[in-house]
Every structure is written in structure tokens, then in C-alpha cells.
């Protein structure tokens, strides 16, 4: 295992970053006072100092606390939306591939129609039509995953299609297994690398979507979501006013989060492809 990690550089770096982020967030959550992430908690417009590591913003939030809570909330959105997208992908992908026929045609058709629709625009439309008070972390997760489930469905479907023809599936049938057992016990375990990669990709997309929607002001404004902080900084002309430290925290956090997810995705891609993987 260790040997493999040495060879798969991207997976190692990605996992390393992720572990660092998790530790940072956990430590943060245990040591902060939540309400300092919300307006009117501390002295505003303070530059970074020992007391306020990332300084404070115009509204009186402690930017370090805001970053910790922001990362945590981003993680929730990412995991929720990512899991939802992946689970739908698995269910629809398997049904479509294993049972074929009309069901397969239907699911494939829907996926292919929805895929070219620019998710960003739809997300903006939906997010901006929701009443500002209803926009929460959960609604953001829903908006984000609504148009992202098609990709994992199609990927998993094509993997199941090819796996269905493999000889060990025929042997399983001869050994007395029925279709459902074959799906869960024979095919599914072999798809774990793909599913993991699809999940990571979904989480990435969800995190990124939540970020850009918040940056343009469509997020739950009160929450210290990373994108929100950037939006707030921009709308208060932070740089012109000399409050250069305001967007630093969330930018850094976003780069690390997206970077680690991207590297893990690359690493998983390599793992799932048996030709690249080193055989004994």
C-alpha cells in the first residue's frame, strides 16, 4: 500500500492536503467561538494580528473563525450534494445497464438531453428566484446537484455494461446467483474505484458551484461561506479601502480544497485504470 502511494504522486499529495484540511477544520471547530463568525461580534476592520489571525472585516466578523466555519459549511454542501449525485448515478446507472431495454433507452435519453445544458446559468436562475430568506446551506446543495447527476450515471452505466460481459459474471450465473446478487456482489465491488472517483468529482463540482454562486451574491448571505466572504469583500471595495487581508483566508482555503480534491481525483483515475496500474 505504501509502495503504491509512493508511485501515485497525485493521490498522495491530494490525500495529504485533505488530511491537513480536516485536521485544521476539526481543530478550528473545537477552539473557536461560533458567534465570532457572524457580524457585530468583534471590532471591525482590524488587520491581521496575534488576536485576529486573519484580521476582521467591515461587519465585525473574525475572519479566522469565519474561514473555519466556512470550510466546514463548504464541506457539508460538498458532501451532501456529492453523495446525492453519486447515489443517483449508481442507482440509475446500474438499472440502466443491467436491465437494458426501454428503461435504459429512457435514462440514457434524459441524461444526454440534460448534459449540454449549462449548469451555471440554470443554477443562477434558480438561486436568484428563491426568496433570500430561504437560501440555506441545504438549498444550495440541492441547486448544485440538480444538474450534476447525469455524468456519474453515464459513466457508471458504461462500466456496468462492459463488466456485464465479463466471464466471471457468466460463471456467477452458472453458480446459481440471480441478477440482483450478481449486481451487488460481483459487479458493484469492482466498480468501487469508479464510484470513488465519481464521488470525488461530484464533491469537487458541488464545492466549486457553491463557491461561485456565493461569489456572485446568491449564497446564504449571513453565513460565513467562503464565497460569501469574497463577495462581501468585493462589494465593500476591500482593496480600495486598504483592507487587503479580507479575501485572503477564503481564497487560500478554496485553493487548498479544490486542489486536494482535484489531485485525489487524478490519483483515483490512475487507480481505476488497470492498464496504468502496476500489476504484480
Amino acid at each position, binding site marked *: 500500500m505504501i509502495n503504491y502511494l509512493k508511485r501515485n504522486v497525485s493521490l498522495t499529495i491530494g490525500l495529504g492536503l485533505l488530511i491537513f484540511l480536516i485536521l485544521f477544520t476539526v481543530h478550528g471547530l473545537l477552539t473557536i467561538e461560533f458567534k465570532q463568525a457572524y457580524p457585530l461580534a468583534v471590532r471591525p476592520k482590524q488587520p491581521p494580528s496575534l488576536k485576529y489571525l486573519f484580521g476582521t472585516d467591515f461587519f465585525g466578523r473574525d475572519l479566522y473563525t469565519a474561514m473555519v466555519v466556512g470550510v466546514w459549511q463548504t464541506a457539508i454542501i460538498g458532501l451532501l450534494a456529492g453523495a446525492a449525485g453519486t447515489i443517483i448515478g449508481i442507482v440509475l446507472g446500474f438499472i440502466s445497464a443491467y436491465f437494458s431495454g426501454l428503461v435504459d433507452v429512457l435514462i440514457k435519453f434524459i441524461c444526454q438531453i440534460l448534459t449540454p445544458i449549462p449548469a451555471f446559468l440554470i443554477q443562477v436562475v434558480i438561486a436568484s428566484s428563491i426568496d433570500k430568506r430561504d437560501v440555506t446551506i441545504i438549498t444550495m446543495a440541492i441547486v448544485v446537484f440538480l444538474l450534476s447527476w447525469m455524468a456519474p450515471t453515464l459513466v457508471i452505466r458504461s462500466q456496468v455494461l462492459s463488466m456485464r460481459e465479463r*466471464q466471471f459474471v457468466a*460463471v456467477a450465473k452458472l453458480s*446459481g446467483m440471480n441478477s440482483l446478487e450478481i449486481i451487488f456482489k460481483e459487479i458493484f465491488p469492482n466498480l468501487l474505484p469508479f464510484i470513488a472517483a465519481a464521488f470525488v468529482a461530484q464533491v469537487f463540482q458541488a464545492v466549486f458551484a457553491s463557491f461561485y454562486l456565493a461569489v456572485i451574491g446568491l449564497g446564504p448571505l449571513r453565513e460565513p461561506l467562503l464565497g460569501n466572504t469574497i463577495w462581501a469583500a468585493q462589494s465593500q471595495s476591500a482593496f480600495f479601502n486598504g483592507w487587503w487581508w479580507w479575501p485572503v483566508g477564503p481564497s487560500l482555503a478554496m485553493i487548498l480544497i479544490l486542489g486536494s480534491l482535484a489531485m485525489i481525483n487524478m490519483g483515483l483515475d490512475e487507480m481505476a485504470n488497470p492498464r496504468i496500474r502496476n500489476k504484480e
Partner: protein
Amino acid sequence: MNTATLELKNVSKLYRVGKKAVHALNPITFDLLGDPARIITVAGESGSGKTTLASIMLGLLGPTTGQVLYEGKDVSKLSGAQYRDFRKNVQAVFQDPFAVFNPFYQVDHLLEVPIRKFNPGLSKAARRKAMEEALEAVGLQPSEILGRYPHQLSGGQRQRINVARAIVIKPKILVADEPVSMVDASLRANILEALVSLRENYKVNILYITHDLTTAYHVSDSIIVLYRGSVMEAGDITKVVESPQHPYTQLLINSIPWPDLERKWDNQRYANPDIQEISGAGCKFYSRCPNRQPGCQVTPQLVPLFPRHLASCLLHQPQANLDSNLTQNL
């Protein structure tokens, strides 16, 4: 006593590729009767229909015409206990020793699943014992095999586990599709011995599918020679191999690279096998046959030439007083 019967009644398989129709298997009728247990070879090149025949017999593929009957009942209509009985008793050993293993599981999985499904009452210890006995029967040490993953074992070991699976199930009918072609020459004997012992000790009827007539000669009792989906010659194996009557069988036998300096390839040159055959009526071997005649444009029937020796070729006169039923001659 093995009384299971598998009957193929007028079974054929047709594939449509765009506008073209590919006759993978032309209508064939024969029965695998339980007693006495025999090993029947189905020989042919790629494209002969032998794999299609195997898939249909195993119930993995549905025939275009005809029926496959297990114990008198149509296989495609079986359910419940009758289906389970069919499933247990009609098994296979496949060609590729690696492809039969699910790479996610240890090799034990291949043996455990059928035991659980077909012998549900057994305790864990009894299951383990059955697996160990089967592995030992094919010359493997259970301690070196159980708990390993497929990629950790050699091709010869994997194929022997494949055969051990058949021993663990003890089916009444076993379809062995090229079981030794992907195995090293020195290991083939072990696997073939295992198949023969299945017949001897467990009275299993084996359909041995191969293009290698040397091993077929040593292992089986009778033979069906297929070419492009039709039966060219059939009967007792010693008769067919020692004095082949059909020009195609003669070509096959002559092409065998015998490891014997006294039996070298002769100088007869056969027509290029790359020429596309004339589809439709007529003998399938027409375009390559050195003895072809105008009359061969009419499909020849499979007729008895000698006791337990059938051929479908106009060159030979059928013996009127002999039985032309394929099953009886095998």
C-alpha cells in the same frame, strides 16, 4: 447413476448484422443421455459454431429455432426448484483461466459460491473441507491456494481451480470449452486427467469443445466435427481420427502438428481459407474442398458410412441399413 438428459431439438442460431444474416449454428439435433457417462468432443475452428453450441446448452443463450430440453422440459421455461436442478447439473469449464475470477475476491470465492448455492445446508467447516478435497483432486495444495488472489497464481493453477469448481459441484453434464488451450503444454495432462476422472468417478457426461484434435483423441469417446455451423462428420473418435472421410476432417487431421517426426505435414496444398464462402445452400466446405463437384451445391445430409461413423459429403455412399440418428452414433 446419472440419468440426466439434455436434448437439443433442431437448435439453430442466427445473428443479424445489419442486412446480413450470419448462421452461427445450423439446425442440429442430438441428445446427451445420462448413462453411460461419456466424453464427446465438439471440434472446429473459430467460426464453426462450437462456442455458440456451448452457450445454448448452458442456457446462457437462447436458440433462434428449436428447443433445449432438460429432463424433458424446455430450459427457457424452467423456474424454481427445477431451474436450480438444471443450473446445478449443467456446468462449464471455460477457456481463459483468468477471466473466470472476479478480481475483487480471493480465489476461494469461485469455489464457495456454488457450494453455498447448491449445498446450502453445509457448515463452514464442511464447506472448507469440500473445497480442500476438490483442490487436492486436481493436484493443488489447499494451503498454497486458498486465501490468495487470482493475480497471485499462475495460469496453470487458475485453470486447475476452474476444474476443481466442477468437482465441487459434481454436475451431471459438464461443458468444457477449450479447457487446456491457454495452459502450458506440460500442465495439460493434469487437467485432462482431472476431466477423465470426473467421468470415471462421478459419471459426469462431458462435452469437450476444442480445435485440438490430439487431446480430443486421447480424452474422448466420440466426436462431432463442425464447420461454419454445420456437422461435417461425427462418430466414434478412433474411427473419425484414424480414417477421416470428410475432406474437411482430413484437412484438420493433416494440419495437426504431431510431435512425431514420422508424421510430418504432407505436401497437399489446400485452397486459401481466406476466400469467402458461398453462403446459402450447398456444402459449407465447397470453396476450400479439393474434391468439389457441381453436385455439392446441394446441401449434403449427414449420413452413416460405417457403424458409428457419419459424414455429410457426396463423395461417400451412405449405408442404407445403418442408423442415421446422430445421438445413436456418438
